[in-house]
């Protein structure tokens, strides 16, 4: 395991969030250190995306404290989070359908030349960036609306890498990706760790999680349900923490298949 600093770069203490009649998060804690990859796992609707959005400033927390490099901070708007150095890839991507790929990648931090947009430089760099993620996009000048699901996902990931973040949050980044692109993204996560960034990775894929994460945080029904170091924990233990039971659909399915194989 890589060296982990003492003060976490980002820490949540007792965060709660309610939507109308639904208590989406209750008293959640989370810590990310520089150079650490934290996997955040949990059942569907466990509150992972909600937690990510509170960190990214999409919606403010009801209760609890967000600490940045040890100091409590207020994150009320996405600008606040970006100002701190948090880059986020959202599960629902949030791209502007009417803008082209280049426009989306550089949205909010366009390159300028004599005060006007430097389309040439942006286009060139976008091509390079997308090539490193080995995605094939017909042209960087077509609107996002006409891209496939996976192509959009890669654009959203590439977006988070422009700029110079300290913490990168990836909400199910590989959900729509092909095998090759998934491998590239996992490589990318490892490169981010090497550059000593903090990474929060949300995924339902246990193989991906155990491949790149250092620590696994489990959320269940909006509450913390355990923190596991990846080394020395089995997938079964994590899944049991996610589903809240050792007897679940996964184990039953495995058992049935094993029986059928006999």
């Amino acid at each position, binding site marked *: 395991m890589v060296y982990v600093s003492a003060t976490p770069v980002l820490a949540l203490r007792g965060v709660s*969030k*309610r*939507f*109308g*009649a*639904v*208590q*989406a998060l*209750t008293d959640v*804690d989370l810590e990310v250190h520089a150079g650490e990859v934290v996997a955040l796992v949990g059942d569907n609707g466990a509150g992972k995306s909600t937690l990510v959005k509170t960190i990214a400033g999409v*919606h*403010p927390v009801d209760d609890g404290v967000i600490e940045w490099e040890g100091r409590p901070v207020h994150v009320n708007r996405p600008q606040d989070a970006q100002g701190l150095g948090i880059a986020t890839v959202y599960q629902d991507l949030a791209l502007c359908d009417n803008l082209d790929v280049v426009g989306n990648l550089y949205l909010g931090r366009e390159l300028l030349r004599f005060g006007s947009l430097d389309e040439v430089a942006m286009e060139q760099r976008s091509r390079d960036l997308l090539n490193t993620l080995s995605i094939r996009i017909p042209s960087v000048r077509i609107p996002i609306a006409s891209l496939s699901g996976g192509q959009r996902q890669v654009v959203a990931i590439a977006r988070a890498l422009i700029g110079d973040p300290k913490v990168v949050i990836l909400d199910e980044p590989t959900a729509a990706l092909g095998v090759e692109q998934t491998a590239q993204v996992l490589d990318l996560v490892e490169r981010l760790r090497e550059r000593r960034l903090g990474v929060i990775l949300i995924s339902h894929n246990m193989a991906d999680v155990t491949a790149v994460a250092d620590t696994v945080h489990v959320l*269940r*029904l*909006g*509450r*913390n*349900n*355990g*923190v*596991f*170091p990846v*080394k*020395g*924990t*089995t997938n079964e*233990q994590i899944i049991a*923490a996610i*589903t*809240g*039971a050792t*007897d*679940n*659909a996964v184990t039953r399915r495995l058992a049935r298949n094993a029986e059928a194989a006999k």
Partner: protein
Amino acid sequence: MSDKTTIRKPVDEVPPPAVATVDPRLLVREEGFKGYLTEFKRKLKGGELGSLPVIVALIIIWTIFQVKDDLFLSSANMVNISFFMAGTGMLSIGLVFVLLLGEIDLSVASVSGLAASVFATLTVNHGLNDWLAVVLTILTGVAIGAFHGFFFAKIGVPAFVVTLAGFLGWTGLMQWLLRGTGSLTIEDKGLLHMLGQRSFFMDQSIAGGYILATLGVALLLIGSLIDQARRRKARVPFRPTSEILLRTVALAVVSYVAAYVLNKSAGIPNALVFFLAALVICDFVLRRTTYGRKIFAVGGSIEAARRAGINVALIRITVFAISGGFAALGGLFLAGQTYTATLQAGTGNLLMLAIAAAVIGGTSLFGGRGNVWSALLGMLVIQSIQTGLDLLNMDQSIQYMITGAVLLAAVVVDSVSRRTQRSSGRA
């Protein structure tokens, strides 16, 4: 390092997954009346108040006008408000349908003007029977609306442009129809009499208002109780009896007081009765039929609706036809206010006020959100402002300014409460 002490807070007592369980994070409501109160407080804080803010704005407007002129809440003035709001209100109902699709119909005012002149031409110049003429007039409106809908849905011309072209074209047609005489006097009899100022429900009988009120209250109570029983049987969540009673009592108070006040001078104008009937029918269509469900679906997401196998073009055409029909009907109501078809019918701010009514009442301009009752609420606000300012006998230029300011203020109340909702993440 595989010891489990790292698990900080295991959730204990987890139910087996594939079994029907209530989500433990759902803040369930307590039983009985107290639960109703706490739920209301939560909604108040969260800004989920439906049309309550508009009602509050309306009460504020009424209070201010009443302080300025104590005739405002008099029976005679209330009869005026309730009579004059019906005509524009009919246009507004049609617009609610169109707005639910996320579209706009700029032609309603000029179609309403055309309808008046068509009706007048048919009855006065061609001596047609009253009822037949009404049917033909409404069919004209429906046909015009379907025509707009066709160009929008099938050819793909933006609804704004089609109905703008209609707005100009139908005004021209109306002027052409009336080119001989300019204005035509419509006889104060038959159906048009029923839409006029001197026609009241059950011929001004005191009982009329109370019968209507009782009917409404009874319908609500019986409907709610039947629904509750079915839901209880099917084991899905249902409204507690206390809430049903509270709602029924609220409606009863409002409607009996309204009946009492209106009865004090003349009774319930028939125009209002028709307007209310149209509202009830349209509300049923929108909330309780597959057709209404389809309108909401198209307004929410055209692509999702299309993929669900809904004939989007058909929905669009019919909705514009409905809007055209209500515009024609509204035109007859407006003609009934003066028994004349004039060249100026449908001009001025009529269109804007009809749209504003729907929007103030809470129907979204972006589709998929709203209900027909917003036409009623919005018209109450607008007509109250107009009648109130007329009572105060103020300069027209000042009236314009005050109308603008009050309109804005009425919606600010609503928006501020919704802002709470947005900041709590729901909109």
